[in-house]
């Protein structure tokens, strides 16, 4: 019975967010009259303070605590900072939208904060147990947020679909974890890696578990063949919630893939790379082709999100060639860079939909963007930046994200994969450019000026400009990703 009290220092940000969630819950219960504004401001303040704590407690080396259940490394810290950032931006964009529809209850912000905590736990997990619990915390909060507009039949349906499919995916993931446990006798990633490396674990059982793990990860990333929920949920959820689903959880899912597959099962890379190859090709082909047929902007962005996640997977599968892990760092950092770039673009694209929406009107059809140039040349320009960047037109951040992933894929020798990805991106450029065409060359149906709060306008402009600016100087973010990954292994 020699138990040493764990070192709480590396987990300071997680503890802070958990405590603040409880404080916000109590505060909004006792201060009912100002609860809405209070919960919002406290949540934003918590996210900002958590970012400072994460930066302050950042350690150069990898630190374990809570009996090795928790790991603090630079990759985790970097992804956590990105998660705070995207959650804060998403909540700011969504605030006016939620207030217009009278669903900006304090519980919404509370769930958003607990969801952030779930993602932080996923990102810093060094063991299957916290990874799974973090995942459930994130998902449960998300299901609820999708259903938050209770009077809308569409959002209830979307929440139901998301919940049932999400529960199924969690089941698959758990089953895979139990198989890996059965084969290796441990749930800790390091221990699993050791056991696989020394070949004490039975490979057939491991492979069986691996299939389920890949299925679970694919669902959370929203890639083919586990993509069915993505369009329906994106379209059905209130746009402010879609904005949340399409951003930070993708980073958490990326971290989950890295921890499970690369930290834990690196020696099985050849097997999971083959599986991911099908996933990536399927996502890029289906995402781009299906997006062409969409008239609904949210649905189109959902399919485009599937293809973007296909690119992230493409980066993940290019790490090991013939047992040589030489390109691994390059490939994984390109995937991480892609995920971060996608989050920044995704924030701006759904932010534009929120900008054009108003009480009783959702600007969710592509036709609603008609003649945006006449209504607001500035935001038409911003939307053009976003669309160009998503299409991968130089010199926006999306171009460099695609370029670095493709470089990694070619370096790994999968030339045909790169060709498929490029061809599909060119086809995909059609539907992005269609939005630009509609904005600049069609006459507007609706010439009412854009009504949006000042903070949304300012931040959305900054977001659009950031896409352009990061495209001019992508090196910094890229090397940050590479450095974070390098220092974590």
């Amino acid at each position, binding site marked *: 019975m020699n138990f040493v009290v764990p070192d709480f220092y590396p987990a300071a940000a997680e503890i802070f967010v958990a405590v603040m969630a409880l404080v916000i819950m109590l505060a909004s219960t006792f201060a009912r009259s100002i609860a809405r504004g209070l919960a919002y401001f406290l949540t934003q303040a918590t996210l900002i303070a958590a970012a400072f704590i994460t930066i302050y407690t950042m350690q150069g080396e990898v630190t374990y605590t809570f009996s090795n259940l928790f790991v603090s490394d630079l990759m985790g810290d970097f992804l956590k900072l990105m998660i705070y950032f995207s959650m804060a931006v998403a909540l700011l964009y969504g605030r006016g939208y939620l207030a217009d529809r009278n669903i900006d209850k304090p519980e*919404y912000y509370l769930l958003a904060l607990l969801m952030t905590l779930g993602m932080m736990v996923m990102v810093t997990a060094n063991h299957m147990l916290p990874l799974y619990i973090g995942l459930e915390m994130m998902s449960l909060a998300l299901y609820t947020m999708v259903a938050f507009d209770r009077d809308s039949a569409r959002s209830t349906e979307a929440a139901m679909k998301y919940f049932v499919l999400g529960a199924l995916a969690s089941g698959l993931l758990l089953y895979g974890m139990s198989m890996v446990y059965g084969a290796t006798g441990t749930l800790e990633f390091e221990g699993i890696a050791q056991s696989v490396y020394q070949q004490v674990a039975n490979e057939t059982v491991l492979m069986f578990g691996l299939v389920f793990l890949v299925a679970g990860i694919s669902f959370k990333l929203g890639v083919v063949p586990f993509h069915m929920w993505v369009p329906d949920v994106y379209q059905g959820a209130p746009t402010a919630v879609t904005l949340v689903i399409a951003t930070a959880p993708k980073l958490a899912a990326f971290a989950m893939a890295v921890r499970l597959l690369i930290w834990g099962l690196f020696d099985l890379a050849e097997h999971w790379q083959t599986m991911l190859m099908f996933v990536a090709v399927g996502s890029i082909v289906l995402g781009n082709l299906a997006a062409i047929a969409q008239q609904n902007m949210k649905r189109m962005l959902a399919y485009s999100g599937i293809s973007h996640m296909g690119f992230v997977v493409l980066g993940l599968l290019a790490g090991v060639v013939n047992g040589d892990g030489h390109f691994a760092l390059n490939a994984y950092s390109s995937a991480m860079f892609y995920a971060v770039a996608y989050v920044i673009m995704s924030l701006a694209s759904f932010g534009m939909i929120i900008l054009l929406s108003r009480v009783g009107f959702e600007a969710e059809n592509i036709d609603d963007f008609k003649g945006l140039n006449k209504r607001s040349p500035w935001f038409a320009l911003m939307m053009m930046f976003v669309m160009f960047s998503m299409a991968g037109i130089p010199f926006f951040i999306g171009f460099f994200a695609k370029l670095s992933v493709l470089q990694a894929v070619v370096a790994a020798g999968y030339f045909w994969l790169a060709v498929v990805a490029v061809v599909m991106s060119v086809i995909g450029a059609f539907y992005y450019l269609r939005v630009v065409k509609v904005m600049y060359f069609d006459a507007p149906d609706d010439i009412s000026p854009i009504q949006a709060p000042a903070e949304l306008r300012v931040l959305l402009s900054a977001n659009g400009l950031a896409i352009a600016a990061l495209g001019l100087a992508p090196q910094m973010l890229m090397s940050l990703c590479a450095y974070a990954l390098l220092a974590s292994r």
Partner: protein
Amino acid sequence: MEFKTFVFYFLAVIMVFAALRVITVRNPVHAALFLVLTFFNAGGIWLLLQAEFLAITLVMVYVGAVMVLFLFVVMMLDINLDRIREGFWSYLPVGALVGVLILIEMVMVLGGRYFGLDAMPTPPAAQEGYSNTRELGRVLYTDFVYPFELASLVLLVAMIAAVALTLRKRKGVKYVNPADQVAVRREGRVELVKMSAEKE
């Protein structure tokens, strides 16, 4: 056959049968009751594995609390069976194909070859006076305190979610707060007005 083996097969056969009935039986209330039977048998098998605390918890928590609540919900809801069964036959071929494939794979992997006694030898028997409950309690509050606390937060999320999605304040409902009613005093209802007597 050893007695323990007999007990195991007895419990296992009932459990598989009950689990199958959960998904095949028509009446949802019966399905819930079969699930209770499944839990009881699973608890029995855990007892055989000397995991007595988990077995008792399973019966107490799942049978005693969760399933009873579930039964209430099922009985309260008016479930239209015909609507649920709509499309059953059109989905059956694909579903059956996937199900059978997974079943074959599971049998191949989970059969005796990889999880038999030679692959996974029997763990050494616990020493005298070993307490499962005590050990669980020990690791739960020391080594696994981090996931333990997180699990409590997951439950908090579920609670907030349930309240946020179901609590509705309706307008125009003539509801009177009983506490207010009880607290009513004479002064609040009756007003004595002094007026001079009228003369005819």
